[in-house]
C-alpha cells in the first residue's frame, strides 16, 4: 500500500473541502450572556438564523456568565484580538465601552445596509446607544423589571383582585399589607428578592429612587441634594420588609427563581427575561397559575428601571474585520432585529418598532399586561461610570447586600456610597 499517496489524496481532499467551505460560508463568532430562559430562546433564534443562511453565514455562539465575568472577558479579548465578531451588550454600558475604545462605530451606511433606520427605534433607546452623536450598537430590546406573582397563593391569602392582579399596588402601606396577609396565610416568603446579590437589587432600588423623583447623577455630582435621602428611603423600605420577615434574605439569583417557581415565594421582582422560564415550566405542567405586572408604586409615582440589550461589534486590536465578515455581521444583527417577535416570547420588549406595532405582538401575553409600564421607564444615567458591572453598579451593590439583610443602617450605607461615588 502506498501510504504517501493516500496521505496526499487526503490532504488534497481536506484542502479542497476547506477552500470550498471558506468561499461559501462566513462564520460569525457570537458572544452573549443570556443564561436564563431567554438564553433558550436566543439559541433557538440562532439555530433558525443558521438554517435560513445555510451555506452562507453560520453563527458560532458562546454564552458566558452574565455581568462582570462577561465584560471582563470582552475587555481582555479585545485587547489581544480574540474578541468575537458580534456580541450582545447592555446599552447602559455603552458610554463606558466607548471610553475604553472597545466598540466599532455603527455608521449610517451600516444602518442602511441592514435596512434599518434610527426612526425604527424609540428615541430613548437610540439615545442610549449613541455617544457624542455616533452610534455604537443596534438595540435589540428593552427589558424592564416586573412583579411576578403566584395567583394560587395570592387567592388563598385573599389578596388577588377580581382582575386577576395582586391587590395593594398603589402605595407602600397597601403593598406591605398584601405581603403581610400572604405571610399570615402561611407563605414562607411573601416576596422573593435577590438579596444576596447587589447587582440585581440595584434595579429595584433605582426604580424606587425614581419613584420619588430622585436621580443618581446631577451634573457631575452623585446623589446631590436630597437624592441621598431618597436612596435611603428606598433602602429603608426594603430593609423593613426583611426585618418583618416578608422578603427572602441572603438569596442569590438561582435560589430566588427556585423559591418562586417552587411556590415558596408568592411574588418576585425580577427582569422580564424570566418570563420564558415560567411559560416553559407552565407548558410542562410544572407551574401554578402565574402572572406578571408592573412593579408596585411604593412612593409618589410609577417608575421602573429598564436597560436594553443591543448588538455591538468589538474593535479587535490588530485584527481588522474583513468587509465580507462585516457584511455577514450586519446581516446577523439585521435579521435578529427583524425577527425579534420571537424574542418577545422571552419577555423582552423588542426595540424594533415595526415588530411591536404588529397585532401579533400586541396580543402576546404576559407582555401585553406589563407593557403599559414603558411610559414609566428609567434608564441608567448616561455616564462612562454607569452600566452593568460598571463602577457605579459595583460600588452601590457592595452596600446593598448588608443593608438589605439588616446588617447595616440605610443612612450609613448611603453616606459611604456617596463618599465612594464622588471620590471616583
Amino acid at each position, binding site marked *: 500500500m502506498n501510504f504517501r499517496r493516500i496521505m496526499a489524496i487526503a490532504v488534497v481532499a481536506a484542502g479542497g473541502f476547506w477552500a470550498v467551505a471558506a468561499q461559501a460560508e462566513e462564520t460569525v463568532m457570537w458572544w452573549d450572556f443570556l443564561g436564563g430562559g431567554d438564553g433558550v430562546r436566543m439559541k433557538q433564534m440562532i439555530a433558525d438564523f443558521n438554517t435560513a443562511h445555510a451555506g452562507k453565514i453560520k453563527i458560532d455562539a458562546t454564552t458566558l*456568565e452574565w455581568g*462582570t465575568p462577561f*465584560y*471582563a472577558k470582552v*475587555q*481582555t479579548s479585545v*485587547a*489581544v484580538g480574540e474578541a468575537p465578531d458580534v456580541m450582545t451588550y447592555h446599552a447602559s454600558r455603552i458610554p463606558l465601552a466607548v471610553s*475604553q475604545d472597545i466598540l466599532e462605530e455603527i455608521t449610517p451606511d451600516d444602518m442602511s445596509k441592514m435596512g434599518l433606520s434610527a426612526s425604527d427605534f424609540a428615541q430613548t433607546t437610540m439615545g442610549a446607544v449613541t455617544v457624542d452623536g455616533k452610534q455604537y450598537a443596534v438595540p435589540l430590546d428593552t427589558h424592564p423589571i416586573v412583579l411576578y406573582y403566584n395567583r394560587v397563593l395570592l387567592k388563598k391569602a385573599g389578596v388577588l383582585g377580581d382582575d386577576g392582579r395582586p391587590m395593594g399596588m398603589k402605595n407602600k402601606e397597601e403593598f406591605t399589607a398584601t405581603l403581610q396577609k400572604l405571610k399570615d396565610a402561611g407563605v414562607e416568603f411573601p416576596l422573593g428578592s435577590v438579596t*444576596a*446579590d*447587589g447587582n440585581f437589587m440595584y434595579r429595584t432600588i433605582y426604580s424606587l429612587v425614581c419613584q420619588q423623583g430622585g436621580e443618581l447623577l446631577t451634573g457631575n455630582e452623585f446623589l446631590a441634594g436630597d437624592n441621598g435621602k431618597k436612596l435611603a428611603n428606598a433602602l429603608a423600605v426594603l430593609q423593613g420588609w426583611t426585618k418583618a420577615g416578608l422578603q*427572602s*434574605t*441572603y*438569596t*442569590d*439569583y*438561582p*435560589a430566588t427563581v*427556585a*423559591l418562586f417557581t417552587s411556590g*415558596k415565594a408568592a411574588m418576585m421582582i425580577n427582569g422580564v427575561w424570566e418570563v420564558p422560564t415560567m411559560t416553559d415550566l407552565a407548558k410542562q405542567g410544572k407551574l401554578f397559575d402565574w402572572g406578571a405586572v408592573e412593579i408596585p408604586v411604593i412612593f409618589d409615582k410609577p417608575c421602573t428601571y429598564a436597560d436594553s440589550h443591543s448588538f455591538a461589534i468589538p474593535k479587535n*486590536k490588530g485584527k481588522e474585520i474583513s468587509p465580507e465578515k462585516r457584511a455577514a455581521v450586519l446581516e446577523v444583527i439585521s435579521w435578529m432585529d427583524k425577527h425579534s417577535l420571537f424574542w418577545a416570547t422571552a419577555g423582552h420588549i423588542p426595540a424594533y418598532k415595526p415588530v411591536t406595532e404588529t397585532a401579533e405582538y400586541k396580543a402576546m401575553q404576559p407582555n401585553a399586561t406589563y407593557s403599559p409600564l414603558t411610559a414609566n421607564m428609567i434608564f441608567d444615567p448616561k455616564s462612562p461610570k454607569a452600566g452593568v458591572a460598571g463602577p457605579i453598579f*459595583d460600588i452601590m451593590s*457592595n452596600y446593598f*447586600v*448588608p443593608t438589605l*439583610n439588616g*446588617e447595616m443602617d440605610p443612612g450609613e450605607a448611603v453616606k459611604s456610597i456617596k463618599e465612594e461615588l464622588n471620590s471616583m
Partner: protein
Amino acid sequence: MLRNSRTERLVALVLVAPFLAIYLLAFVYPTVQMFRISFTDAPLIGAGQWVGLDNYLRLDNDPMFRRAVWNTAYFVLMTVIPGTLIALLIALGVSRLKGRFQATVLALFFLPYILPVSVVYLIWDWTLNFQFGIAMHVLDWLGIPRVPVFKSRAWFLPAVAGVTIWWTAGFSILLFLAGLRSIPVEIYEAAALDNSTRWTTFRRITWPLLWPITSLVLTIQLILQLKIFDQVYLFSIGGRPNDNMVLVYYVFQKAFQQNQGGRAAAVAVTLFVLVVVVSVLQFQLLRLAERRRR
C-alpha cells in the same frame, strides 16, 4: 572511572535543554516581566509609561488591598494549622485500622482531594445553600437559626477555609500515614512495657518522630493557601466578591476586570515576595524547632 568530560557536558546540555527552555519561557521571563511592568502604568496588554514606585505607594493607601492582605492572612491562619491537626487526627484514627477496612475508610477521607475545585464548589454550595441546603434542614431540626454561610461577611472565609480543609486534607493524611508507618513497632512495644499511657506514648514517641512530616505538611499547606483564589472566586459568584477579597483575586480583578496591568503587577510582586519571605521564614523556624527537639 574514565569520563569524557566534553561529551558528558554536551549530553548534559541536551538533556537539560528542554526543561531549561520551558523554564525560561514560562517562568523566568514572566517573572522578570512582572517586576518590570509593576513600575509602569501599562494596561493588561500593551506598553505603559514608567511611573517609578507609584503603584506600590498607592497600595499603602488602598483599603481594598489592605482587606486582601488581611483576608489572605486570616484564611491562611484558619487553614494551615487546623488543617494539619485535623489531618493528623484522621491519620491516627485510620492507622489503627487494618486491611480492606482501612482502605475503605481512607478512601472516604481521601476522595475529596482528587476532585476538581469546581466540583467541590458545586457540592458545598448545594449542601450549605441557605434556602435549600441539607445543612440548613439539620439546623432547623436542631432549632438553631439558619446561617447564610456563603453570603455573609462573617461566615464566608471560615466556611471556605472549612471546605478547603475538607478538600485538601486527603493529601496531608497520606503523608502522615506514611510517617506513622515508618515508626518501628518495637518502640511502641517498649512503651507498652513501661506502662506509659496513650497520651504519653503520643507525646514522647509519635509526635517527635512525626515532626519531619508535620513540618513538611505545614510548609506545603502554607505555600498552597497563600495562593488562595479558586474557592474564593467560585463561592463569591452571585454574592459579595469585594468583601471576600484575597490577594490573587485582587491581582485578577485589577488586571482582568479593570485592565490595570501595572497596578496588578505591583500586587502580584507583593504576593510573590510575601510567599518567598514567609516560606523561608517558616523553613528556618521549623529547622529551629527541630534542632531544639534534638
